[in-house]
């Protein structure tokens, strides 16, 4: 045991639909869970990529949106009181002397449990990075993909890149703080909310901010200190926009990330598992949902739900060695109904 570590039965990496349903199946067996997700919200792909699009193949639910499915799962697992660690990347895994897992996040949270479940889907959601030479060397000092502290941008010359809500929202929010603010987008059209587009255009019309219809071609400066960004527009041609901060907003992409360093066998960035327990090659580490692979695998939510149920049986044997597992239906078991808080 370590100081300040959260002790639990099962650590789940990924709060997508499959990680969420695993909370339910594990909870029925009396196992407590902590979940880690790099996103600031729950729901994985359903919440991030298609909150408003319909899903038609969840058994028993003829149609629901990605967000509705997430909300329903949250309602279903509420009795088990899962603990969420959001906006945190599961980063470092070690095995303790007692055989338990110790997982550390990039925010310094430490979790310890006998079982680790990887429900990492297509990988962690990370910002898309523009293809600009040397970009990495400027990150953290001059280039940011999110605004954590607005004060960092005070009296700076800030260039925001992109045409969606995040780009426009930050252009508007940082305008009063920054010494100079500019927006660069490849076309004079924006997929952001109409009132944001109006607010942005007003700032530009009043001369309080610049709008460049151009694309980014390169960075100027001595890393990590940016002095400008090379832009190229159809009408303006190539020019250097002087600035000391760059905020690119091109949405998120899925990258396997630190899970690759956990010492688990991988096959083309997927975790091979057996189909009885959905355990990886490392005993005590399970993989369910889009992240795993086995003969016949289909990347469907319903497959992940099935995998979560079988995984839970095997996880129980590790978390509660020597205890007997009773197979029961939620319909008729008063014990399960008590756990669900319906009795």
């Amino acid at each position, binding site marked *: 045991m370590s100081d300040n570590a959260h002790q639990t039965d099962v650590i789940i990496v990924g709060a997508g639909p499959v990680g969420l349903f695993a909370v339910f199946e594990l909870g029925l067996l009396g196992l407590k869970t902590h979940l880690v997700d790099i996103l600031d919200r729950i729901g994985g792909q359903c919440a991030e990529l298609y909150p408003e699009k319909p899903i038609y193949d969840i058994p028993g639910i003829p149609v629901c949106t990605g967000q509705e499915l997430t909300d329903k799962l949250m309602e279903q697992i509420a009795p088990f009181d899962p603990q969420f660690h959001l906006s945190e990347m599961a980063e470092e895994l070690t095995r303790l002397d007692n055989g338990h897992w110790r997982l550390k996040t990039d925010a310094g949270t430490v979790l310890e449990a006998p079982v680790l479940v990887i429900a990492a889907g297509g990988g962690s959601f990370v910002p898309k990075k523009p293809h600009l030479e040397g970009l990495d060397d400027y990150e953290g000092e001059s280039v940011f993909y999110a605004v954590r502290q607005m004060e960092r941008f005070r009296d700076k010359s800030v260039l925001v890149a992109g045409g969606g809500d995040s780009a426009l929202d930050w252009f508007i929010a940082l305008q009063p703080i920054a010494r100079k603010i500019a927006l660069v987008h490849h076309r004079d059209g924006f*997929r952001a909310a109409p009132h944001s587009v109006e607010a942005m255009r007003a700032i530009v019309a009043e001369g309080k901010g610049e709008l460049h219809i151009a694309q980014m071609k390169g960075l100027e400066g001595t890393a990590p200190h940016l002095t400008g960004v090379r832009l190229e527009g159809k009408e303006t041609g190539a020019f250097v926009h002087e600035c000391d901060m760059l905020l690119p907003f091109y949405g998120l992409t899925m990258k396997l990330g630190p899970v690759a360093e956990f010492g688990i066998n991988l096959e083309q960035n997927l975790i091979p598992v057996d189909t009885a327990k959905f355990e990886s090659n490392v005993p005590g580490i399970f993989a369910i949902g889009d992240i795993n692979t086995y003969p016949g695998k289909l990347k469907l939510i319903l497959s992940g739900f099935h995998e979560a149920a079988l995984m839970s049986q095997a996880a129980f044997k590790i978390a509660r060695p020597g205890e007997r597992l009773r197979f029961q239906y939620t319909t008729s078991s008063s014990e399960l109904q008590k756990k669900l808080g319906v009795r």
Partner: protein
Amino acid sequence: MKILVTDGHGVEHEIEATDGWTVMEMIRDAGLPIKAECGGSCVCATCHVIVEADWFAKLPEKTEEEVDMLDLALEVFDTSRLSCQIEFDPSLDGLKVTLAPDAIM
């Protein structure tokens, strides 16, 4: 019927085309390393291709949804398209596209 797809190394691949399939689906089915993270739902822009100019002119117009989603492409070219939004029909036999850097796995 076929389409021609140039990969990240500049190598051209001739792919069997299927009527009614999208260009993204044909590229993925052929085993080329296209990300297509959202599986063709027009919400990710990681199926971005650059269409050869002559062919670009022959394609049906982009929908508003596709124009919006192309904003998430890291660099947009004059003939950029999202390959999951191009449905193949026999008039596109011989279509030539190049995988954009942000579409490559």
